[in-house]
């Protein structure tokens, strides 16, 4: 996506294709009509044969992975696989009441917990339940340790009293309620977490005390908006200059826009690290001319994320703006001026409205790309320059909470598709051009 040189040739142009260039059926005999339909069907099949290999390839290589991710965000069978029989028994228990499950349920649970302890899987259960009920990890682990050497025959008859004797906390309703909830194979828990919501004891959806992800989404949106506005402001004069300059000058100067565009993203990020480091080019320069005495903390801040991404995404704004401005007839502005308009009002009221298609195309493009950016924030962002993609990567790679990563990713995907739909309505996807 990052190498697309996009130019919105003309906003709002009819998208898609014409329906067909086929002869009309008027005045034909039935045999001729059926013949014509047959020909049309054959042509359709032939064109489909051209497209089919890629459709199949993209379905397997791209759509299926995205589908898997969406599925992973709601499918979480871990607990259901760990304590299947307990969950069957718990199904009859009323989790909204005040009474703990009956002794027979607890008996079944002790047998399964012993099995888990023997298979060294009790930790998994502890981790899963602890996620929604902090503190239950030690309860489950210690009970599993103690239960390991007891007679399974005895547990199936009298496990309940043993369990309650070990840890009085098993009398609490919460732990059983959480196990029952966590036992569901399909869950919206990860979406709730991703939106900083949770189930309370009554099963109602309430806000969490600490807001993490919504805040991060807002911050990502804010950074993306800031970058979009900055690229817009910076690009506009350059695009205007290029569009009004003589063709030779414009073509030569265009190289300075296209070379950064074609340069690897990693290279440009590296350059910014070299520029912004504590002992980097900018700090040493400012120190050598005695503007500052101590080096500034430029790198690993939100500032460095914004400036590096603005630089990287600038061509995506310049190119559509330039191509729209190129198509504007300069005589409109000249007419306004010769009819007595002052230059600045004439520019704002005559010229600028005509550049809105390019501006909106570039802005949406920059916004869509920057909202999902990962590499640059990861390398220059520090802690407060991180965006939503970075937390997704964190949950994929470090905390191994894949389901939460999938839920966060699905929400981001939804947001992008919404923006993309707007882009399609505004600019038309079929107007995307390369090179």
């Amino acid at each position: 996506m990052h190498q697309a040189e996009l130019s919105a040739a003309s906003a709002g142009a009819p998208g898609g294709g014409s329906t067909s260039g086929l002869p009309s059926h008027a005045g034909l005999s039935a045999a001729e009509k059926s013949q014509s339909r047959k020909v049309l069907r054959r042509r359709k099949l032939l064109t489909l044969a051209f497209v089919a290999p890629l459709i199949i390839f993209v379905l397997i290589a791209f759509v299926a992975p995205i589908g898997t991710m969406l599925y992973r965000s709601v499918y979480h069978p871990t607990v259901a696989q760990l304590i299947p029989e307990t969950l069957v028994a718990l199904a009859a228990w009323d989790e909204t009441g005040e009474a703990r499950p009956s002794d027979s349920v607890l008996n079944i649970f002790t047998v399964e917990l012993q099995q888990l302890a023997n298979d060294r899987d009790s930790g998994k259960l502890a981790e899963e339940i602890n996620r929604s009920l902090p503190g239950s990890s030690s309860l489950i682990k210690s009970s599993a340790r103690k239960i390991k050497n007891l007679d399974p025959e005895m547990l199936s008859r009298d496990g309940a009293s043993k369990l309650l004797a070990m840890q009085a906390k098993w009398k609490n309703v919460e732990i059983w309620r959480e196990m029952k909830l966590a036992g569901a194979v399909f869950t919206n828990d990860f979406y709730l977490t991703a939106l900083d919501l949770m189930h309370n004891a009554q099963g109602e959806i309430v806000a969490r005390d600490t807001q993490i992800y919504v805040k991060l989404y807002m911050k990502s949106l804010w950074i993306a908006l800031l970058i979009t506005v900055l690229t817009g402001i910076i690009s506009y004069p350059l695009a205007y200059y290029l569009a009004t300059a003589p063709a030779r000058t414009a073509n030569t100067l265009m190289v300075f826009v296209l070379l950064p565009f074609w340069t690897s993203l990693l290279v440009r990020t590296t350059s910014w690290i070299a520029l912004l480091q504590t002992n980097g080019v900018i700090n040493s320069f400012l120190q050598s001319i005695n503007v500052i005495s101590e080096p500034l903390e430029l790198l690993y801040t939100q500032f460095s994320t914004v400036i590096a991404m603005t630089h990287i995404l600038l061509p995506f704004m310049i190119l559509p703006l330039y191509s729209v401005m190129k198509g504007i007839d300069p005589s409109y502005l000249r007419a306004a001026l010769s009819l007595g308009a002052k230059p600045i009002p004439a520019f704002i009221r005559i010229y600028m409205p005509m550049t809105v298609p390019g501006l909106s195309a570039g802005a949406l493009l920059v916004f869509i790309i920057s909202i999902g950016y990962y590499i640059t924030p990861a390398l220059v962002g520090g802690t407060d320059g991180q965006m939503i993609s970075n937390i997704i990567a964190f949950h994929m790679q470090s905390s191994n909470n894949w389901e939460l990563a999938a839920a966060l990713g699905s929400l981001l995907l939804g947001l992008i598709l919404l923006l993309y739909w707007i882009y399609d309505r505004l600019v038309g996807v079929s107007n995307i051009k390369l090179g």
Partner: protein
Amino acid sequence: MQFPKYFTFWQKVGMHSLRLTAWAVLAFLMIPILVIVPLSFNAEPYFTFTAGMLSLDSDAYSLKWYAEILNDDKWMLAIKNSFIIGLCATAIATVLGTLAAIGLSNPVMPFQRLIMAMLLSPMIVPLIITAAGMYFFYTQLGLSGSYLGVIIAHAALGTPFVIITVNAALSGFDYSLMRASLGLGATPRYTFFNVIMPLIRPGVISGALFAFVTSFDEVVVILFLAGPEQRTIPRQMFSGLREQINPTILAVAVLLVVLSALMLLTIEYLRARAEKIRTGDI
């Protein structure tokens, strides 16, 4: 700068400040890229200009970071991998993308808009989402940590660019040439390679270049899918920037800038050629 005689003083000031702003923006675009060129010849292992470099002392400059690339097995493996993966992914993306673009440009194609949207989606979806999804799915297929997995992933990311460029080339294509060829008895195969192909070749080549650059520059999917054996240049740069920053990265970066300049020249040449074909100068 020459202005028309009727320009007022303030109009001239306005034009001058516009030109100044435009040049400032161009400088903002270019300086970060140009600044790494001298830095990559730094004799000291720093990311900044030393006093010796500023006084143009020849001892302050050295080629040792370039030599370092050649002596480092990891970098050599990364370079080899980048080309293997890039070329294979480009081949798949170009063949499948060209065929699909030809099919899609035909007006009788059913569900054209829907299919187009699906085929272009790898370009729209943020890479982190693609990478996470591919990690889930390709691991199930046993493809993660293999060349095949990475190549398939990169080919999928490259196809939208081929579709777009070939589609653009086909927009000026006269279908009566194809019908004439078929009508005169040429086989579909002959028609494809001798009538259609020569006319859309610039579009195909620039699509292939885009697909190659996409793969060559891609690092997020590599981070999730590739094992240590499949490390590419950007992947190596990414870990270099995170772990120990060392000017070898700058030397690699300069080489990549040179490569992108070559790509840019090729693309511009092809665009000029495509323009000529469209207007019938060839």
